[in-house]
């Protein structure tokens, strides 16, 4: 079935809620209004106000409530409208939820899901357009997945709800309205921790995440080289095996990231692969990222901020033909001086 990503998410929530009465959802305006991004449309009507709850503007409060509820029998799914709002509630996710099982000797878990919309592309400006994956890095006990469209959103949200551990789902906001063929039902569920090879090639492995998966795929059109394109899908844990196997074959790794160059999510992957595949690499790992700037508001700058498929293609052209990295556009353009 062809669905918009936001519909796929609503389907995933509904399917899990139908099968498991412990699943509840909560967040700001997710019930009566069907969600600020319409990812929970119809759920209040079907499941009622006991299981589908509008919350006060209290991210610490309702995320904390999800922790307590998860530990005592529910499977709460919390919506954080914009991922930045985790900045007022991070404690409950990384310092409480992720450590609950450990701090109870295994007796209490915190099987909750935090869904947050992330990323740029809709003109929400510096405080509502980041991806912020690294806030969750270095947190044993926590998982993080990032869908790249309707199909993976459906599969990952369902897997996240079934997981016994706290799982964050970072949903690229710009994709909510995009349509994709979705496999509904059990067979559509995507195991957390697995990537997916969307394109097979020989010269380079391109890894994307979220909205950069589409960019990566588009970049492989009409090129002199061919590429493995991997949708990472899970960032914590990520599919080390799949990426390393591919790189062992292609000898080159390119990460296409929606995050700053300094401290972006790709550092974990680049660092691991560069070590693990040290002798297989023909060229340095190339991180194609955003510049180290806050996300600018206006459409022409916001577009520029994100790596485009043309830019990715050019960067890979250089990498494949010279086995050297090209400079990023902001260095070549002298924007840092």
């Amino acid at each position, binding site marked *: 079935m062809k669905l918009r990503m936001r519909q796929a998410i609503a389907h995933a929530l509904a399917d899990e809620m139908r099968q498991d009465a412990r699943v509840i959802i909560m967040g700001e305006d997710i019930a009566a209004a069907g969600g600020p991004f319409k990812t929970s449309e119809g759920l209040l009507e079907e499941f009622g106000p006991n299981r589908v709850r509008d919350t006060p503007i209290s991210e610490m409060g309702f995320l904390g409530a999800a922790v307590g509820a998860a530990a005592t029998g529910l499977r709460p799914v919390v919506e954080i409208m914009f991922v930045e709002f985790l900045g*007022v509630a991070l404690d409950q996710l990384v310092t409480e939820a992720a450590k609950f099982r450990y701090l109870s000797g295994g007796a209490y878990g915190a099987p909750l899901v935090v869904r947050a919309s992330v990323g740029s592309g809709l003109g*929400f400006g510096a*405080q509502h357009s980041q991806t912020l994956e690294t806030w969750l890095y270095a947190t044993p006990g926590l998982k993080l997945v990032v869908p790249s469209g309707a199909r993976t959103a459906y599969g990952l949200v369902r897997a996240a709800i079934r997981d016994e551990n706290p799982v964050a789902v970072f949903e690229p906001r710009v994709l909510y309205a995009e349509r994709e063929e979705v496999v509904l039902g059990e067979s559509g569920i995507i195991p957390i921790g697995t990537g997916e090879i969307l394109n097979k090639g020989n010269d380079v492995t391109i890894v994307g995440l979220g909205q950069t998966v589409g960019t990566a795929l588009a970049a492989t059109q009409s090129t002199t080289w061919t590429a493995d394109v991997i949708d990472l899908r899970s960032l914590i844990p990520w599919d080390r095996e799949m990426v390393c196997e591919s790189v062992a074959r292609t000898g080159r790794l390119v990460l296409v990231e929606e995050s700053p160059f300094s401290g972006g999510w790709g550092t974990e992957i680049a660092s691991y692969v560069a070590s693990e595949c040290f002798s297989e690499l023909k060229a340095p790992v190339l991180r194609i990222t955003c510049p180290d700037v806050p996300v600018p*508001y206006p459409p022409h700058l916001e577009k520029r901020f994100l790596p485009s498929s043309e830019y990715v293609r050019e960067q890979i052209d250089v990498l494949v033909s010279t086995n050297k990295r090209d400079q990023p556009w902001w260095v070549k353009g002298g924007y840092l001086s």
Partner: protein
Amino acid sequence: MVGKGGLLVMIKSQQLQRRESLNDPVSRWDRMLEIRYFEDRIKELFAEGLVHGTTHTYQGQEAIAIGIAMTLRPTDNVCCTYRSHGIALALGMTTDSVLGEIMGRAIGSIGGVGGSMHLSDASIGLLPTSAIVGGGIPVAAGAALSAQVLGEDRCAVAVFGDGASNIGAFHEGLNLASVWKLPVVFICENNVYGEYSRINLTTSVEDISIRAESYSMPTEIIDGQSVDKVAQGVARAVERARSGGGPTLLECKTYRYSGHSRADAGLYRPAGELEEWLKRDPIDLYEAQLIEAGLLSKERAQTIRQEIQERIAQLVERVMASPLADVSAMFRNISIGGGQ
């Protein structure tokens, strides 16, 4: 800080002139209209797809912005939210600077990189507005703290919504301000809704003002549709702040005529609620008052309305014709002394 040196010291900036003009009652009314028509036009621009992103307009709440701006000094600091066009214009920012920002133009108040939710102008004390609910509340306490520590005669104001009173930063900011007796005024614009949720669905009190007791803080409930009532309440609180009496929580009862943001038609509102509030439109109320006081005639009022409409029409043309922020803008003002 901008506005402290050079030319700006000699020739009074447009912002300061606009601010001072609020001493005149008719100009206050004029400014309220400016805000109203500006916001109406913003809504249209978004609806027409001419502006990118999101916006939160201020129609119906204008008396609060004016009441605050006419009372504060330009050296006082204001912290506001994403719903800040009205406050910004009232404080003295020009329509070019606000619309320029909303439309990503170089003339925008912060160069066009911020958009509708991020206005700021140091010359009239407007700190960067925050798109994080409650974010500005402790920041305002901090702006008051600097006044207290430095022994300056400044005060600070935080403007925020009813929904924001449920977030931790509200609680922490008010307690801190009370314990330290900071010269700050917390102004809650209770417009009955936080996004699409009516206050009663998310907030355990009807009057936000009640929460002042948790901080042993003086409080008032104010008719937010009356410029004078707001100004008087703010004046009392500011006087308390400047004289070492500490912070105050003011709750202005008001209503937003539009939906929460661009995409919202406000269909969740009970039938008749908007109409009830429209009967006490702050602009109409003030107009009637000015006419009664003999400061304004019906005819003059009509003329002013038309003039402002025209000003706004010209503004939009002017701004749309002005250059977009260029690529280098996204690399500026990130850090001082070399980037990361």
